[in-house]
């Protein structure tokens, strides 16, 4: 569904024009430029009686400068020196006050209205060059507008700000109220997410939860006698019959909030929002080993959020108390996705995993609708003995999901319905399920308490306890078997065993003590210790302990130089690692388990060192230079497989310089390097590499290690020049980022008799390597405070090199790979956005009253 862009744009432009016309027709005096502040000061220097009304002050009027211009350049975090915007000439402020001037000014009240609009005309040379250009925006030829309106009368206020009006990434906020009585706000926001332009799909019904391929195609492919024949036929059909589709989602959010202030110091608030997501995203489905299809996954979600809260606090009081309730209702309008198998017209009982076996269609359960309730209470007590503050939180959450359960399979062939398969019911009939609805339920509890005080002068002490708990109350689900990718029924490896959905649960207790000492002028040193214990149900370790020590040092003692730094060491220890825990608990103890030497990284003991520092040197009042560095090193001390270690280094500098009030420059550069190593062993049961029956030690020629690394580079440069003071302004910004990824591998080299991977592994040298440039100069001429015209050019270039792009084809024959049968893949190309060079020209007029 396309949003009513034209409606929104037209309505708002009409509204603005009507309002402006009315105001002009009433002949209200336009707001005049204020006299200089210096004039006011000269008038008032020492001789004025402040109690007497004065006509000597400049006219004071409502003004605001929210950014309502269209978004063109990325917000790369380049700073705008605030000193560059002299306050007397237009602070970038958001007015929320009454326009009635105080008595002593003795001047007429300003207009209670402030209106400003921005209209921009864009020309984009190839707006469909790549979905990456438009990933979260709607940059295209045509006109878009921004609008800002403010109104004040007595105690009443109203504000409206809209941006990108008429586009797919528009947003509009309104708020207002009566001071001291109530406040309200409303929001409308659209955010696109474009995944792919021009993806190719054989499926019909795109955008729905039933994807079909013409029977004639499937009949022809089902009659293929080999993988090669099936691949060639499918390739031909894709070339002739595939439709071109744009894969995208759109988020639309509407919300409002009401705050009752009249009962101050008790303030009550209620808010509601509805977020709709519509569209489809590139996803996958499979029919056994090696055969998978890329499908457009339908998205039709609504999330309704309701919150009510009350809080009580007086400024001069010691107590703050709040309570809140939240309800979040997620609705997925599609319970499941059915997608045709391109290679089958009829369900097959052919052997497992063959390209010509499997169902005529697959069915996937989509994200289920769910409901969440949360109740929380917070208490803060200040001004306790030792200048202490105590704060505490208790929160309870309830997650519920009880959607209908779909049948095991869509496959009606004998292999799934006969008693010989071990199934005692028809796998396609939901009547045979252990229950008809999910009956899943989880509760969360959060408890937090913190005491912060100063028992001695300049010495601060903080103690904190936190509990974060998840309880799983899911009705136990026990199955004798399940259906593997709609192809075949899979029983447990243990005769008479069961598959049981494990009710995952955990509880984390954390206690922290920190002492800090302030010395000198704004210098501080601190030491903190944290102990954390996580108890888990149904995972490989029953508990984990984290012991963490952190030291920090900050100072502004050295004149213009500021330093912030910290170091932290974490030692994680765990209960004995039970690598086959999940199999045992699921009722299938004989299931062949994970590699026994592998510690899952989120359950593995480690030592971690982290350090971070930032130095800022205020060279002059107009210039500053800062540098930062971060280093994280983790060593998994008991892991012989899985993640062994990881490293992360980040460095950067940034510089800002405002030599005059008409020139400002800002620049930054950053570098990040991540690197880690992980190990595994390639093995099959009953082979020499089997860690249980064959090579039971750590050594094996079938072992391998991978050492991926990623380098990131970023840079930015911005300049702002007032070529003609208050009239002509040039602003330009350049940003650059680059990522370079690589994966190196090692493996002992043996022979096929003693090595399941008897080759020297080579590296992948192009792993999500991207380069991105943007350049945006803009020239703005201001006729007056109320009218300006700007022209700008935006250049953007993005390129990617990754092994997935190399030799890509929409249909691929997957050769036999070890004991896996061969298969065929049918792809859309929905995950491979091409690079682009985009040129954008725009002119923008901004006018206001």
């Amino acid at each position, binding site marked *: *569904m396309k949003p009513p862009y034209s409606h929104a744009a037209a*309505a708002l432009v009409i509204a603005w024009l009507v309002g402006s016309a009315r105001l002009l027709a009433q002949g209200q005096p336009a707001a005049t430029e204020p006299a200089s502040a210096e004039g006011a000061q000269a008038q008032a220097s020492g001789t004025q009686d402040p109690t007497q*009304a004065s006509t000597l*002050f400049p006219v004071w009027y409502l003004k605001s400068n929210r950014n309502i211009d269209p978004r063109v350049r990325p*917000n*790369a*975090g380049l*700073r705008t020196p605030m000193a560059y915007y002299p306050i007397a000439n237009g*602070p*970038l*402020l958001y007015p929320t006050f*009454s326009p009635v001037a105080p*008595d002593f000014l003795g001047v007429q009240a300003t*207009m209670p*209205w402030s209106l400003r609009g921005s209209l921009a005309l864009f020309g984009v040379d190839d707006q469909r060059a790549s979905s990456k250009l438009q990933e979260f925006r709607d940059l295209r030829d045509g006109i878009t507008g921004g609008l800002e309106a403010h109104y004040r009368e007595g105690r009443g206020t109203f504000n409206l700000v809209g941006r990108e009006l008429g586009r797919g990434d528009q947003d509009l906020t309104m708020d207002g109220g009566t001071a001291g009585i109530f406040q309200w706000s409303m929001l409308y926001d659209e*955010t696109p997410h474009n995944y792919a332009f021009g993806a190719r799909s054989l499926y019909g019904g795109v955008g729905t939860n039933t994807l079909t391929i013409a029977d004639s195609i499937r009949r022809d492919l089902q009659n293929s006698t080999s993988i090669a024949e099936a691949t060639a036929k499918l390739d031909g059909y894709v070339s002739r019959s595939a439709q071109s589709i744009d894969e995208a989602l759109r988020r639309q959010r509407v919300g409002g909030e009401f705050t009752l202030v009249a009962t101050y110091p008790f303030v009550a608030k209620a808010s509601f929002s509805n977020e709709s997501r519509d569209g489809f995203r590139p996803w996958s489905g*499979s029919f056994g080993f090696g055969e998978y299809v890329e499908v457009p996954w339908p998205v039709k979600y609504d999330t309704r959020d309701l919150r009510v809260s009350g809080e009580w*606090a007086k*400024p*001069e009081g010691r107590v*703050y108390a709040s309570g809140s309730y939240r309800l*979040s209702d997620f609705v997925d309008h599609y319970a499941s996705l059915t997608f045709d198998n391109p290679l089958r017209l009829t369900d097959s009982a052919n052997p497992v995993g063959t390209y010509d076996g499997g169902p005529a269609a697959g*069915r*996937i359960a989509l994200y289920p609708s769910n409901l969440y309730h949360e109740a*929380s209470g917070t208490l803060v007590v200040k001004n306790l003995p030792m200048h202490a503050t105590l704060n505490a939180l208790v929160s309870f959450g309830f997650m*519920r*999901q009880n959607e209908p*359960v779909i049948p095991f399979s869509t496959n009606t062939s004998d292999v799934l319905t006969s008693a010989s398969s071990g199934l005692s019911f028809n796998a396609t009939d939901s009547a045979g399920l252990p229950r008809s609805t*999910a009956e899943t*339920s989880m509760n*969360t509890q959060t408890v937090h308490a913190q005491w*912060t005080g100063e028992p001695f002068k300049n010495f601060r002490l903080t103690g904190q306890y936190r509990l*974060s708990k998840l309880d799983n109350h*899911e009705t136990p689900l026990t199955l004798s078997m*399940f*259906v593997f*990718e709609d192809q075949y029924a899979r029983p447990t490896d243990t005769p008479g065993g069961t*598959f049981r959905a*494990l009710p*995952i649960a955990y509880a984390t207790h954390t206690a922290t003590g920190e002492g800090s000492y302030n010395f000198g002028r704004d210098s501080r040193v601190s030491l903190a210790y944290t102990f954390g214990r996580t108890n888990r149900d149904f995972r490989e370790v029953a508990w984990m302990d984290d012991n963490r020590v952190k030291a920090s040092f900050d100072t502004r003692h050295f004149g213009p130089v500021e330093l912030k730094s910290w170091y932290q060491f974490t030692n994680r220890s765990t209960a004995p690692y039970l690598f086959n825990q999940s199999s045992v608990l699921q009722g299938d103890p004989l299931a062949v388990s994970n*590699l026994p030497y*592998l510690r899952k990284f989120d359950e593995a003991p480690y030592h971690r060192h982290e350090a971070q520092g930032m130095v800022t040197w205020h060279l002059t009042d107009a210039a500053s230079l800062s540098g930062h560095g971060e280093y994280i090193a983790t060593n998994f001390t008991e892991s012989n497989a*899985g993640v062994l270690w990881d490293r992360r280094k980040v460095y*950067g500098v940034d510089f800002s310089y405002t030599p005059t009030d008409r020139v400002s420059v800002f620049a*930054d550069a950053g570098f990040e390097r991540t690197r880690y190593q992980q190990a595994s*062993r390639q093995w099959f*049961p009953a082979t020499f590499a089997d860690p249980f029956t064959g090579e039971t030690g750590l050594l094996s020629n079938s072992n*391998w290690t991978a050492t991926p690394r990623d380098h*990131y580079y970023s840079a930015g440069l911005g300049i702002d020049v007032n070529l003609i003071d208050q009239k002509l302004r040039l602003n330009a910004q350049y*940003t650059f*980022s680059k990522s370079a*990824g690589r994966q190196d591998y090692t493996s002992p080299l043996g022979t096929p008799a003693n090595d399941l991977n008897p080759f020297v*592994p080579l590296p*992948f040298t192009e792993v*999500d390597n991207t380069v*991105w440039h943007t350049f945006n100069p803009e020239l703005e001429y201001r006729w007056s405070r109320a009218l300006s015209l700007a022209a700008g050019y935006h250049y953007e270039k993005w390129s990617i090199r990754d092994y997935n792009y190399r*030799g*890509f084809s929409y249909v691929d024959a*997957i*050769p036999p790979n070890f004991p896996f049968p061969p298969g065929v893949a049918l792809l859309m190309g929905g995950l491979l956005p091409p690079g682009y060079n985009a040129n954008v020209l725009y002119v923008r007029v901004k006018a206001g009253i």
Partner: protein
Amino acid sequence: MRRMKAVLVTWILAIAAMAILSAGTPLADPKPTQERSTQPNEGTTRNPDQLGALPLPTKSAGATYVGSEACAQCHYDKFVSYMNQTHSHSADPRTPGSRFGCESCHGPASKHVAGGGGRNVGGLMTFSKAVPTSERNAVCLLCHTRGSTALWHGSAHDERKLACMDCHAVHGGNQKLLQQPTQQQLCTSCHQQIRTAMMKTSHHPLREEKMQCTSCHNPHGTQAPRLIAANSTNDKCVECHSEKRGPFLFEHPPVRENCLNCHDPHGSSHEPLLVVKKPLLCQRCHASFSHPSILYAPSAADRAAGRTVYQSFAQLSYRSCTNCHVNIHGSNSPSGKLWHR
């Protein structure tokens, strides 16, 4: 029906704007000065006891309040900036404007005025960097004791001696009185590594300004780690990604415990926001027999054959493991034990 709803909402909003713009409410007419009521907080002398004077940490003992008009005579630009934002809204009992105006924060100014003004005259609170952070913050914290600032004392930024003025400019900030036009520009002035992260290929729409730092964090203090504005990281993620809240029939345990086990929300070069490219991400934990444990690396024979088509490994190319294990966040299908369905 949904389109109708969207159209209806759009027009209701527009009509509301039109109605207000065209309201019959008269525009504010200039009134003769003598007809305006003198607001009690804009008088020349006021009784601090009656108006609930706050214990300001100033050195102006014995000084009295003189009224904002006195301040405006010399500091007109500051006065205008004060009047241009929420603090001045005298009808709201929560504001300095409803109490002593400028002097609510800077302290009683009689000694400053009597001394002829000037820097460091009269013991006013100046909020310059020469004043210790704790003293400057104490003024703001006299009133900002609720809502998002209720948990400031003992928070991470408080512990690191961040001053309110380091982020906010009461006399010259933008919306929310920030020192920079946007949060992205403000927060990354210290958290510079996030600036690099924001520029990565796979990212949340921060640089498109459809999200901002406070979409996930509350810099004033929270009761969760990393200043997350929710009870936990996962609670925050599912506020927007509520389809992944579940619970599901078949859970994926590391997903339930922490989204950050697999994702980096600030940015990544590996779609979608993954810390590591698949299949290596999944092979960190899964090394059972057969395809999870296979070494998916090119060989010299591949190179010699000119093989560039890595699609031949379904477990390596394209979506990799999630080509088949599609419901990786959890499955609600009875056949979803391995997240295929």
